[in-house]
């Protein structure tokens, strides 16, 4: 069946992070829990600061392919600081972002991505969902899944779903502002 579907429905990846459960938030918003069920996404990319073991385990139930990078509050020992994952024609580079200074600075993010020779940088730390194109590359940030991140303020809970196609990446941005809102962005592959 896959040969018929590849043209229409691509593989899905969940990009999520900065939970900080239970330090900054009690739990994932119920509306998000409702949406995120097992066996829908092929990949999970976690930007870091998961918080407790339970949340990490929960992420692992969503798909067989989970990728974690270490946030500044992650205590687990066996998570790497950075990670590179190749999905089809897309080279994804993951880093939490607290390591790049100034924090949230596009230029330092881009420089890092270029050094790693990646197409897309998956990063967190800022707590704000963002999708940016820089030169021929992309920087995507799922924001904070719970709205509680390492700053004093809270933000709008959010995460991303990526649909991997050969020539483009479809990004679905899920935010919770009273109700769940979904925005779409299409990122063509530029090499």
């Amino acid at each position, binding site marked *: *069946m896959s040969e*018929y579907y590849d043209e*229409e429905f691509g593989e899905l990846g969940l990009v999520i992070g900065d939970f900080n459960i239970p330090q900054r938030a009690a739990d994932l918003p119920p509306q998000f829990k409702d*949406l995120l069920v097992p066996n829908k996404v092929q990949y999970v990319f976690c930007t870091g600061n998961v918080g407790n073991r339970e949340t990490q385990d929960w992420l692992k139930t969503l798909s067989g392919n989970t990728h974690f990078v270490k946030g500044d509050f992650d205590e687990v020992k066996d998570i790497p600081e950075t990670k590179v994952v190749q999905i089809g024609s897309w080279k994804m580079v993951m880093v939490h972002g607290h390591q790049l200074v100034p924090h949230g600075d596009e230029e330092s993010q881009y420089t890092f991505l270029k050094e790693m020779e990646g197409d897309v940088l998956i990063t967190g730390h800022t707590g704000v969902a963002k999708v940016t194109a820089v030169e021929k590359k992309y920087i995507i940030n799922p924001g904070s899944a719970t709205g509680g991140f390492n700053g004093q303020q809270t933000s709008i809970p959010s995460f991303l779903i990526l649909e991997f196609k050969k020539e483009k990446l479809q990004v679905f941005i899920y935010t919770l502002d009273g109700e769940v809102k*979904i925005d*779409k962005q299409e990122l063509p592959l530029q090499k």
Partner: protein
Amino acid sequence: MQNQDFDIESLSQNLVGISNENQQLIKDVQNILRNEIVDEDGLIKLCQQGFTNQTSRLRGIVWRLLLGYFPLNRKYWTQVIIKNKDNYNNIKIENIKKAPPQNKNDHPLSRNTDSDWNNHFQDQQLWSKIQKDVIRTRVKELGKEDYREMLNRILFLCCKLNKMDYVQGMNEFAALILYMCMSDPNEKLQNESDAFYCFMILMTNLKNNFQLQKEKVRAFQDLLKKVDWKLHDHLVNQKMDFSILYVKWFMILFAQDFHIDDSLRIWDCLFCQKNNREEFLYCLAISFLIQLREELIVGDFGQILLILQNLEKQDINLSEVIQRAHLLQKEQKKC
């Protein structure tokens, strides 16, 4: 091509090695098919003992007629094949290869019934569920990747179009029909589309087939008592649960485990029964029990179970079983 009559002359080609009796059967069937309108009752009379390896060339046409896939008027057969090939292609395209998500509000995690993404996941689940059974169905005959894909497609599309759940057992039915089509000596009948439509017809005819119906188990038991009370009483005394047989014999219709030629032959008989399928099924089941009477009547619970749950491994003369089943059916009609 559309107006070309379906060729039945080739049925009597290459009769080397075939017994005189079977050669006659082939020629008799051919004669019936030569008429503009097929005499269905006459055909059934000839075919009701089922086909063996020597006469299996007749199966393709006979099944298509008895299922109602072919009309009785032969001049339409070629048309039917061509038209359904087209229809099937469209069905495949519409249901397996779909247009990209149209709705602007659609997203991958949607659970709306009209969400393309949601339907995509449901389809994937259905496909996988079927695939788990397909990979171990008739591995010897349909193990090739191409055949597996066909079998998966047929089951998937039938379930999807009829909005019904896939149930174990359907794979065995579809496998028999697919094998029957693809192993036909006549190339014009080797069509996945024919297999699909014949399977759809069969599923329509077997509406509640996969539900255990206690009254039927009871009826089976009662008939055995009538025909052979000694065997019946012995089995009952040994605490035999007749509903065990019900699944493999009355629900799966002998389609599983048996050598494929035997399953096909039993189905030849069942299709020839038209509206008396159920009644004949009881007689067939009882005929099997009587065939194994000697071992069963001295066996204890364990031994009986061992024999009956491995029917295909017993040394059975299927021709005898079928003949006896027909006799039993005749006798029951007199009562």
